[in-house]
């Protein structure tokens, strides 16, 4: 990307001033190297977001930002409740896609002796890949209860523990969900997908803590070097995809009638104060609950698999974060507390120390920010910072971001060779699709370490620990 259009406010903060139709500037948080490697489309898309009505302060892009649709992936934008909009494109198709990490109380050496059996058991228990189905079938009334209750509903049905809820964003239930706003098609698409992982970049990994950067916060989070954790990356499955699809079309058609001139159709949005905007918020929040319930059921299945292989293990939840959402939050803007609707598209919420939303045991440390990497390079746990609250409405990066297309990845690598190479490094991959493995090859992703280093240096979130995979179940 051409860096000459930016004013460099600090080492990791690049500002493109408002011009033309932009109502606010674009601010990108990244190192010079990441900026140089970033696609020029990121600035173009972030500038389009900056032109939407009611946007507040700036259109932000995180260090892992890449070319998305409408919003850049890694985009953050907040809107005024009266003047602003909510955008189905700004949340995306995989509503409330996110990561949850479970502690295990186990050490790496405990896993190594049963690693293959654990991999096989998890693979047998966790429905993964195209066309896989869960065991659960919901009646219409149960579907409504799930869409209203989220993880809370799942725990009530025996999937997990009460204690899990306090360690989930929104305490496991997104308020304001409106099941009536969820179409029959969306419900049908979810019919047999509860408790499924999906495919693409979704995964379940058993990981060990390879490196600790902040021992005090790591202790608050209950992790130390050599510990084993389990991370689950997936979203709201077919229900969320269908809601995204339907509202994108409805908003694209209605935008013109509402007098919103879209710079890009994919930015389809509706005024927050309109009936369509409110209906979307109700449906999107129901999809957030679907994602929370889905990850809660997968947690239950994971615990059952561990019980078979390592009966002594208990798997409490460290935390659950979502990275495709629009949430109503209160932030300080120019010295004034304001209620805002914050879109995070491929960006993780990262609330700093003392935030009321955090469980008491994390109030001092800040929110755990769970960053997924690729199969071979590892993942990170970060902590929210007070500076991040000011810099991007309490947001940070969400992952490595792809470095090349799926087609290019399959041209370069064979799935079998990747599985064998990772096995030789002590990482066992289980997947129904070797082509899927090739498309998700470690080198098809950017260097996640550079991304989290930039997030840390930019003051968005603090590095706490680096995780390396031992087992990867890939859809």
């Amino acid at each position, binding site marked *: 990307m051409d860096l000459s259009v930016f004013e460099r406010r600090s080492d990791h903060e690049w500002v493109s001033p408002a011009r033309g139709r932009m109502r606010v500037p674009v601010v990108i948080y990244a190192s010079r190297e990441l900026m140089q490697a970033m696609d020029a489309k990121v600035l173009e898309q972030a500038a389009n977001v900056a032109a939407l009505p009611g946007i507040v302060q700036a259109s932000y892009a995180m260090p892992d930002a890449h070319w998305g649709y*409408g919003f850049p992936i890694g985009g953050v934008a907040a809107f005024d409740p009266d003047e602003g909009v909510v955008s189905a494109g700004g949340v*995306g198709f995989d509503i409330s896609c996110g990561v949850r990490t479970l502690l295990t109380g186990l050490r790496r050496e405990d896993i190594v002796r049963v690693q293959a059996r654990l991999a096989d058991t998890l693979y047998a228990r966790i429905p993964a890949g195209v066309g896989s189905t869960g065991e659960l079938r919901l009646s219409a009334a149960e579907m409504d209860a799930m869409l209203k209750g989220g993880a809370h509903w799942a725990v009530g049905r025996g999937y997990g523990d009460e204690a899990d809820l306090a360690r989930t964003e929104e305490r496991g239930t997104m308020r304001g969900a409106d099941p009536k706003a969820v179409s029959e098609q969306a419900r049908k698409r979810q019919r047999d997908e509860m408790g499924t992982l999906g495919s693409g970049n979704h995964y379940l990994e058993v990981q060990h803590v390879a490196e600790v950067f902040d021992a005090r916060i790591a202790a608050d989070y209950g992790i130390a070097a050599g510990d084993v954790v389990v991370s689950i990356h997936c979203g709201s499955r077919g229900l969320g995809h269908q809601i995204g699809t339907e509202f*994108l079309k409805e908003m694209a058609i209605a935008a013109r009638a509402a007098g919103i001139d879209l710079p890009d159709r*994919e930015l389809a949005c509706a005024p927050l104060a309109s009936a369509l905007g409110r209906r979307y918020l109700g449906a999107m929040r129901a999809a957030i609950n679907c994602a929370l319930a889905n990850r809660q059921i997968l947690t239950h299945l994971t615990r059952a698999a561990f019980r078979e292989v390592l009966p002594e293990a208990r798997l409490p939840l460290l935390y659950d974060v979502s990275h495709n959402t629009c949430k109503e939050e209160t932030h300080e803007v120019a010295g004034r507390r304001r209620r805002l609707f914050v879109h995070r598209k491929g960006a993780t919420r990262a609330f700093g120390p003392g935030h009321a939303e955090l469980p008491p045991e994390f109030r001092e440390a800040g929110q755990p920010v769970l960053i997924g990497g690729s199969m071979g390079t590892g993942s990170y746990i970060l902590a929210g910072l007070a500076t991040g609250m000011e810099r991007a409405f309490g947001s940070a990066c969400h992952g490595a971001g792809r470095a090349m297309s799926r087609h290019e990845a399959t041209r370069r690598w064979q799935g079998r060779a990747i599985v064998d190479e990772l096995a030789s490094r002590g990482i066992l991959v289980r997947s*129904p699709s070797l082509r899927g493995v090739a498309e998700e090859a470690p080198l098809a992703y950017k260097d996640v370490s550079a991304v989290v280093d930039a997030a840390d240096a930019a003051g968005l979130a603090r590095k706490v620990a680096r995780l390396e995979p031992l087992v990867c179940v890939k859809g």
Partner: protein
Amino acid sequence: MAVRWEHFRHEADIGVRGLGPTREAAFEQAALALTAVIADPERVAPQRAVRIACSAPDDALLFCDWLNALIYEMATRHMLFARFEVRIGDGRLDADAWGEPVDVRKHRPAVEIKGATYAELDVRRLPDGSWLAQCVVDV
């Protein structure tokens, strides 16, 4: 005039493009490109037909609707499709899609598709008179 499909590059996802002598043919070819994101269309047998209908205020939205209808049918019927017959008139599309249930061993599906996006969305007549239909799909 060539009838063909292809994929095009998108940083995070993948673009599907259909080309043909008519708008209908371009839509049919793009549907093959959609199947090819998931599995090799050559491995999919056109065993039974599913009827699809959608409508939209313009060609571009209609194209996106067509792909989204296929994505919906694939997801809810657990099927893959390999042959298509599209009819378009008055902002309305009617089609038959032939395929078979997903068989993981036979089709080796790589990835499911979440939705067809408006990114790089384009339906137009090319200077040689043929038609192009394309967009990025989210996987």
